[in-house]
C-alpha cells in the first residue's frame, strides 16, 4: 500500500507551534462595547429629545415637524433664567466653599493628628453620609425656620453644606492618609505650623481630591430641587431647578420652553463634569494602587 505523502503546511515547515485560537477576550470586548453603546444611547437619548424639542415652537411640537428658535427667545420672558442661574451659582459655590473649608482641615486632622477619640468622631461624621436627605428634611426645615433663614440663600447654603461635609471629610481623610507623614513633619521642622503645612504643602498636592469633592457636590447641589424649593422662599432668589419646576407646574406649560430651560439647567453641571473628569477619576481611585 502506498503511503500518501502530503506536503508540510507552512507552519509545520517552519517548525512553529500551530496558531492559537482567537482569544475569547476579543468576543468579550465586543459584548462590552455593545453594552456600552446601549447604555450610552439610553443616557443620551433624553438630551437628544431635549435639544430637538427646544428647537420647535409649541405648534411645531404638537404637529411633530418644523424648526424654530421661538422657545429660546421667549424663555427669558417666561422665567428669569439669568437671575435663576445666578442664584444657583451663588448657592452652589457658597456651599462648596464651606464644604471645602470644613472638609480640608478636618480631613487633615483626622489623618495626620493624634487626638483622643479621633476614630470615634470620624466614624460619627462619616456615618452621617448614610442618612438620606428626606429623613432629616423636616427637622432641618423647622430649625432653619426658627433661625429665620428660609427667605434668601443662607438657609439652603447651610443645609447643602451640612449634607455635603461628611462626604468631603471622608474623601479628604482618605486622601491625606496617602500623603507621607514625613512631608508634613519636614514642613514643621522647616518652620510651618499645622495650618501652614496644610495650606502650603498639602493643598497643592490635593488638587485631585479637591476637584472630586467640587465636581460631585456641584452636580448634586446644582441639580437638587427639594432644598431650594423649601429653603429659598423669596421668588427673586430661587434657583434654576425651582424655576423650571414652577414652569412645569404651570397650567399652560410650553414643552419646548421647558426643554430649553432644562438644557440651560443641565449644561453647567455637564461642563463642570467634563472639565474635571481627569481629576475625578484620579480622586476616586486614589489609594487603589497602594
Amino acid at each position, binding site marked *: 500500500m502506498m503511503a500518501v505523502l502530503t506536503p508540510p503546511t507552512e507552519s509545520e515547515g517552519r517548525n512553529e507551534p500551530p496558531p492559537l485560537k482567537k482569544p475569547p477576550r476579543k468576543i468579550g470586548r465586543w459584548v462590552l462595547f455593545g453594552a456600552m453603546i446601549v447604555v450610552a444611547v439610553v443616557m443620551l437619548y433624553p438630551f437628544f429629545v431635549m435639544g430637538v424639542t427646544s428647537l420647535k415652537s409649541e405648534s411645531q411640537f404638537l404637529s411633530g415637524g418644523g424648526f424654530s428658535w421661538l422657545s429660546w427667545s421667549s424663555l427669558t420672558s417666561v422665567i428669569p433664567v439669568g437671575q435663576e442661574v445666578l442664584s444657583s451659582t451663588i448657592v452652589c459655590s457658597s456651599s462648596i466653599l464651606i464644604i471645602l473649608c470644613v472638609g480640608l482641615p478636618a480631613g487633615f486632622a483626622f489623618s495626620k493628628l493624634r487626638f483622643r477619640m479621633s476614630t470615634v468622631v470620624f466614624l460619627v461624621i462619616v456615618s452621617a453620609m448614610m442618612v438620606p436627605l428626606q429623613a432629616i428634611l423636616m427637622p432641618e426645615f423647622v430649625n432653619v425656620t426658627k433661625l429665620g433663614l428660609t427667605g434668601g440663600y443662607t438657609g439652603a447654603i447651610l443645609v447643602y453644606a451640612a449634607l455635603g461635609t461628611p462626604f468631603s471629610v471622608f474623601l479628604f481623610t482618605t486622601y491625606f492618609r496617602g500623603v*507621607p507623614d*514625613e*512631608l508634613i*513633619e*519636614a*514642613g*514643621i*521642622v*522647616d*518652620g*510651618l*505650623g499645622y495650618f*501652614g503645612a496644610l495650606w502650603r*504643602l498639602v493643598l*497643592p*498636592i490635593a488638587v485631585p481630591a479637591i476637584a472630586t469633592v467640587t465636581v460631585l457636590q456641584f452636580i448634586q447641589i446644582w441639580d437638587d430641587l427639594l432644598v431650594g424649593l423649601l429653603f429659598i422662599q423669596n421668588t427673586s432668589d430661587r434657583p434654576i431647578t425651582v424655576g423650571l419646576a414652577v414652569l412645569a407646574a404651570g397650567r399652560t406649560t410650553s414643552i419646548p420652553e421647558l426643554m430649553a430651560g432644562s438644557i440651560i439647567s443641565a449644561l453647567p453641571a455637564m461642563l463642570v463634569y467634563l472639565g474635571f473628569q481627569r481629576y475625578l477619576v484620579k480622586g476616586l481611585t486614589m489609594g487603589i494602587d497602594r
Partner: protein
Amino acid sequence: MAEITFDGVTKIFGDDIRAVDELSLHVADGEFMVLVGPSGCGKTTALRMLAGLEDITAGSLSIGGTVVNNVLPKDRDVAMVFQNYALYPHMTVAQNMGFALKIRGQSKGEVAKKVGEAAAILRLTDYLDRRPKALSGGQRQRVAMGRAIVRSPQAFLMDEPLSNLDAQLRVEMRLEIARIQRLLGVATVYVTHDQIEAMTMGDRVAVMRGGKLQQCDTPQDLYDHPKNDFVAGFMGSPPMNLLRANLESADAGVALVLGAQRLAIPSSYATSHHLPRVDGPGVVFGVRPEDVEVRDVSSADSLTTRVERREALGAEILVHLSLVDAEGDNAIVVNDSGAVVARPTMLVAKMGPRSGVSVGDHLQVRLNPEHFHFFDADSGLSLRRGA
C-alpha cells in the same frame, strides 16, 4: 551651632511602652554622633524628640544650653533629613532648598544666594529647576541635605538617610555626608541601623537597645572594648563570636571549657578582668572573627574544628567552624537557657581569599589570646576592670 544634651530623657507611648528609657547623652558642638541599634531600639524616637516631633515624657533635652522640652519644632533651629527625603513634590529643587528661608521672611536675593552656595557644595547647580520626581535617588538625597544645610541650623538630625539607596550609592553618599558635616562643623545626630555606617561616619557612636543606651564611645573603642555582649555582638561584620563557657582550673591557671576541649586563658586576664570562680556560673567568652587563626599543629592554645560552611566574599572568606570533640563529632553544648542542644558550637573566622579550606576539613585554630573578651553570664556586662 550648639551642643545637644539628653538628660534622663524618657518617652512612654500609651500606658507602658517605654520607647526611650532614661537616655543621657551629650553631643558636643560640631560632633558627628551616630545612634545605632536594631529596629525598635528607640533611636528614631530619640531623634524625633530632639526635632520636637514627639513630646518628652520625662527628663530634659537641651540644645545650645537651652531646655527645649516645650519649644516648638520651628523654634528649635534644627534641620532634619528624613529616610524618604520628604521633598515637597510640587516645588522645584531650588524652591525645596529655599523654602525654610522663605518662611522665615528672608529676601529673594538672600534665599537665591544661599541656595546657590548649598547647590554648589552638593553639586546640584544643574538641577535647581527640576522637580523631585525628575531626580535620581542620590540626587533627591542631596536635595534633602541641601534643604538642611541652607538654613545653617544649630544641629543636623538625620534619620536613616541612606537606607533607600543602592549599595554603591550608599558608600558614595556616606563619604559625601561626612565631608559636608566636617566642612560645616555643625553638631549632627545621625540615626542608622547599619553598623558599618555608624563605624565609618561617627566621631562617636551611641548603641541603643530596648530604649536604653548601651554604650557611647568612639567607633574603635566600641569595637575593641564593648561594655556588654550586646554591643560586642552588634558592632562588627561579621559580629564577635560569643560562646557560653565554664571555667576550669588548669596547670597554668584557668581554662575555658568548650565542649570536650579546653582553652587556656592567659594569666594576665586574671588581673585585667573580674573572672568568676572556676566553679561559678561561667562566662560568655568573645573573640572577633579576625582573631581566629589557622594553625598547622595542635597546641594548648588551639581548638580542633571542622569547616561547616564557607562564604567567599572576594577579598576574604568567612569560614564557619564547629568545635569537635576527641572523636571528631560535633560537640554538644549548652545554650543560654540551660537546655542541651544538638547544634554545634560555631565560630566564624575571617581568612584570606587564597585559603584553601573546604567544607568538612578539620582545622586547628588559634584564638588570639591578646584579644579575648569576657562577659558576665547573667548580666552580659563586660568583666574587664574599669569597663
